């Protein structure tokens, strides 16, 4: 649906977007995730047509679009501040884009009614922008864009201005709306939880580049580097060194010991540093020495943090200065067998819980 090919954008001497290539598919909920200044908003604005590309191509629905003015592109946008026209009421805001299409008045009114129903604000047609709450403005902005039946809907941090509770609700509504309409959504957000909850696929951006494009599960389970791993959820990082003897490769990891390294393409050479990542929930805890497992290490319980139905345990292990965080579900009635702080504890992990990050 959208094909971004080697797009670069410079503002004077600042390179905002550096050689980004992406394929966004028809009917997909796609997110651009990154911290502020990562180039995600600039990329979205280039898709909408508000910023010209410095170099590269943007193909929307099979059409070369990088030189097309915004009013001719088959995309519509929900702005971060919603940009509801203050001199028009809700109905006229929603109907704004219909003038150009030459649709008869009664048909327009029917379409607006349909949209007001869709956004669950049927009796709000005569209100002005300044009589709407943030969440209502957001819905009006959505309706105003969706009434034009765009091929792609662009959303620039649409939930950023809402409070937490409303944000959660709007997340659900956005997702179900997208599934109902089957329109391609491209969302820009700095909120990793939002990106993971809503999206079919996420592009993580940093310093103007796309670091990794993957499904939420893919990003979580096999982050490509420290940035993605740290950005999406909690992560334990371990420094290691590669030991290569012929075809066989081993990894010496601080605190965890020696383990086989799966490196079919031979990216690492003997003596290369490597970083191993393990999620807090990737470990299993044992109060006594466990039976055989892929990896096992003994530690000492340092501190615990309660997170409602779960506990985050901080465990010190030998050969590593930072503690390891381990997430544990608390079973009903399990308080009795709570481990005391300072007591010895064994950690085990399966092979697939462990991710060797790409060489940097």
């Amino acid at each position, binding site marked *: 649906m959208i094909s971004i090919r080697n797009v670069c954008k410079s503002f004077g001497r600042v390179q905002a977007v550096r050689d980004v290539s992406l394929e966004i598919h028809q009917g997909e909920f796609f997110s651009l995730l990154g911290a502020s200044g990562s180039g995600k908003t600039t990329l979205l604005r280039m898709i*909408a*047509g*508000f910023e010209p590309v410095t170099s590269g191509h943007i193909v929307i629905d099979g059409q070369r679009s990088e030189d097309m*003015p*915004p*009013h*001719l592109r088959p*995309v*519509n*946008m929900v*702005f*971060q*501040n919603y*940009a509801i*026209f*203050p*001199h028009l009421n809700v109905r006229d805001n929603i109907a*704004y*884009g219909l*003038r*150009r*299409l030459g649709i008869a008045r009664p048909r327009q009114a029917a379409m607006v009614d349909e949209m007001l129903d869709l956004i669950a604000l049927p009796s709000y047609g005569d209100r*002005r*922008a*300044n009589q709407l709450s*943030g969440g209502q*403005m957001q819905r009006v902005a959505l309706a*105003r*864009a969706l009434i*034009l039946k765009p091929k792609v809907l662009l959303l620039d941090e649409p939930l950023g201005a809402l409070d937490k509770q409303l944000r959660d609700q709007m997340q659900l509504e956005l997702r179900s709306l997208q599934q109902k309409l089957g329109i391609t959504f491209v969302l820009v957000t700095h909120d990793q939880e939002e990106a993971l909850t809503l999206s079919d696929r996420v592009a993580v951006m940093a310093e103007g580049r796309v670091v990794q494009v993957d499904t939420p599960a893919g990003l979580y389970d096999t982050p490509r580097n420290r940035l993605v791993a740290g950005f999406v959820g909690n992560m334990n990082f371990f420094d290691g060194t590669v030991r290569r003897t012929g075809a066989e490769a081993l990894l010496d990891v601080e605190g965890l010991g020696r383990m086989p390294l799966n490196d079919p393409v031979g990216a690492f050479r003997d003596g290369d540093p490597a970083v191993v990542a393990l999620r807090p929930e990737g470990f299993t805890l044992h109060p006594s020495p466990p039976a055989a497992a892929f990896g096992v290490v003994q530690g000492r319980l340092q501190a615990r943090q309660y997170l409602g139905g779960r506990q985050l345990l901080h465990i010190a292990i030998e050969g590593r200065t930072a503690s390891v965080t381990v997430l544990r579900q608390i079973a009903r009635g399990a308080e009795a067998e709570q481990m005391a702080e300072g007591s010895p504890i064994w950690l085990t992990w399966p092979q697939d819980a462990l991710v060797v990050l790409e060489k940097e």
Partner: protein
Amino acid sequence: MAVGGAFGRMNRGLAIYAVAFVAVLYLPILLIPLFSFNAGVYVKFPLEGVTLRWYADLAGRETLHHAFFNSLQVGLVVAIMSTVLAVPAAKAIARYRLPGKRAIVGFIMLPLVVPGLIFGVALLTLLNRFGATMSLATVGIGHVVLCLPFAIATLLPRFEGIDRSMEEASADLGENAWWTFWRITVPTILPGILASLLLTFTISFDEFILAFFLSGTEATLPMYIWSQLRFPQDFPSLLALATLILVFSFVMVFASLRIAGFGRTARREGAI
């Protein structure tokens, strides 16, 4: 009592000053309507009785009516032209990062401080050089130059208040630059446009020096007043005329300020 403290006394001093200030400013002006109702011919106390004779007298003066319609005509054309010219100028100043913007804005505002006499002579010389005959049209040209900085100054804050994303949203919804201007920009700056029209009309309507240099044989209203000052027995009628112009100008300027100010508060309420 708190009111009796140092601040209370200072406020009283300020109040006296304010009253004196307003009195000095407006007493001479208030004398004009006062004597316009005076039955006697001479401007002196005591008043000799109340009359509307001078106002009635205005109704019968053909040359006055002619001058009034001249001023009306010039004022309307000048108001529309200077406002229309000021819209793109104000937009450019507010929107684009022009090199040497400060210098350009200063240059545009220059007619505000150039003495009318010098300005009038300069325009007269220039128009003569081009072979133009002095007429109401040349008065109009002079007034447009004079009014342009006022129009720009009135419109500029409105343009600066436009949220860029509103125009982007319009483009995103399929409207090109022209329609975006009509459907988004114009409604947003409308109070500024109205205020500019009222203000520039009033300036042109009251202006004397440029009209004196550039009008040729056609007189505007202020020129008519000037020409009648020679006749002492007509002076009370001029006071009556001046009173009417005064009321009219006050209403126009007040309305223009109200419109400009009102739009601004309405926008602030609209902003989140």
